[in-house]
């Protein structure tokens, strides 16, 4: 069955995330997400079977498993540690540069020389940091459950877009992230306030940025679809435009985010008319 590795990865990510949340409580959300993703990634890539995990990774996209662990560590520092504002942004900058360098660095050997690649990555890098800051602010305003619903929608939409635009593996990895985020959503019901969402946002931003950049540069994901997915969570700010009852605000948020995610899927569909996994 074509989807078997993806389903196993998603199941494993959900299971691990559930266990971690059960043991660590809602404050364990970054750990649940990061560990869940990393183990799900390993399952999708077949590292529990006949193939050994390559260290260091051979495919650049396999750095995502390591980046998940790094983002988890950073998420826990943001969540538990009392760090200054400048130190927080320095840490985020380092992680963003790591995502760009590890995932897209190999292109400097074959596609663009380092100076050109660096210039090309300034925009995506700045975009990651801006989205991170805005999501962090959103997390401080929304209850944990509301934010994770938004993030799960975007991760799920990314999975669909990545599969449609030429990579089953990247789509499955985004599916693994979605499964872990969904579990975190239920784990964070009733939990509100900045600390837990802040740690969770760190992991989701790093993983989504990595997956979308990999789709854009190694597969056929259109830039417009990747950008729409990257900014889609920010549409949740729309509920600030008018005074509405709490449940209506939640609905408006979900609809606004879904609209952008749906648009990204439509762009992906238009980019690959009539193709079912590229004929495979």
């Amino acid at each position, binding site marked *: 069955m074509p989807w078997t590795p993806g389903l196993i990865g998603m199941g494993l990510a959900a299971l691990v995330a559930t266990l971690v949340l059960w043991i660590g409580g809602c404050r364990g959300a970054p750990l649940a997400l990061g560990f869940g993703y990393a183990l799900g990634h390993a399952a999708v890539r077949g590292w529990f079977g006949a193939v050994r995990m390559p260290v260091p990774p*051979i495919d650049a996209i396999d750095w995502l498993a390591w980046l998940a662990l790094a983002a988890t560590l950073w998420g826990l520092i943001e969540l538990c540690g009392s760090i200054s504002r400048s130190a927080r942004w320095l840490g985020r900058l380092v992680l963003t540069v790591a995502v760009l360098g590890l995932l897209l660095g190999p292109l400097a050997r074959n596609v663009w020389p380092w100076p050109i690649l660096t210039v090309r990555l300034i925009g995506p890098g700045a975009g990651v940091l801006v989205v991170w800051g805005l999501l962090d602010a959103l997390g401080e305003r929304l209850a944990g459950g509301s934010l994770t619903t938004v993030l799960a929608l975007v991760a799920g939409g990314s999975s669909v877009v990545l599969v449609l635009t030429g990579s089953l593996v990247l789509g499955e990895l985004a599916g693994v992230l979605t499964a872990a985020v969904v579990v975190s959503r239920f784990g964070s019901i009733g939990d509100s306030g900045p600390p837990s969402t802040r740690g969770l946002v760190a992991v989701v931003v790093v993983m989504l940025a990595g997956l979308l950049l990999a789709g854009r540069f190694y*597969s*056929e994901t259109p830039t417009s679809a990747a950008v729409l997915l990257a900014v889609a969570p920010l549409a949740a700010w729309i509920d600030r435009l008018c005074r509405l009852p709490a449940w209506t605000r939640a609905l408006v948020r979900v609809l606004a985010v879904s609209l952008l995610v749906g648009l990204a899927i439509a762009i992906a569909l238009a980019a*690959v008319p009539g193709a079912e996994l590229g004929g495979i």
Partner: protein
Amino acid sequence: MNLPTILGAALFTATLATTPASAAETFTVDPVHSTVVFRIKHLDVSYAYGRFNDVAGTFTLDRADPAKARFDFTVKTDSLDTGNAKRDQHVKGPDLFNAQQFPTITFQSTKVAAAREGAYQVTGNLTMHGVTKPLTVQIEPTGTGKGMQGVSLAGIETTFTIRRADFQMTGLSPLLGDEVRLTVSVEGNYK
């Protein structure tokens, strides 16, 4: 010296210039007349075929001393062609070849010995998807001759099977088989 004699001498000299003088003959791969074809099982049902259209490299043949023979080939991953453009994009993507990161497949011989009926037993390193593995194949000369412009030509062919898991190409595993059979048929121009 009369004119026929001069012409005859010139023709003889020109022939010498295009004919290999020593036993070891080195040829440059002619990409137009060279092919790398592969076969892989699809859904454990049928075999899907594809080819790489861009093959380059050199090879040296030496019938007198096969140990002096050499085979160096480079295939551009991006030249993969399965007859379906969308599928080509997919196979060249991160699920399998990851052509952006690994733009070439190379083979370099390290040891050559004589095999049966003029063939060569060639051991070398195959690098694909960033992984290098030793590989031993039997390369058979398929013929020699002259090209349209008088250049000496030689042809060789080999068929062998690899496992893509050996090269960490595990994507799409339930859909595509692990074993890939390759046939490399190369025509070379005398260097």
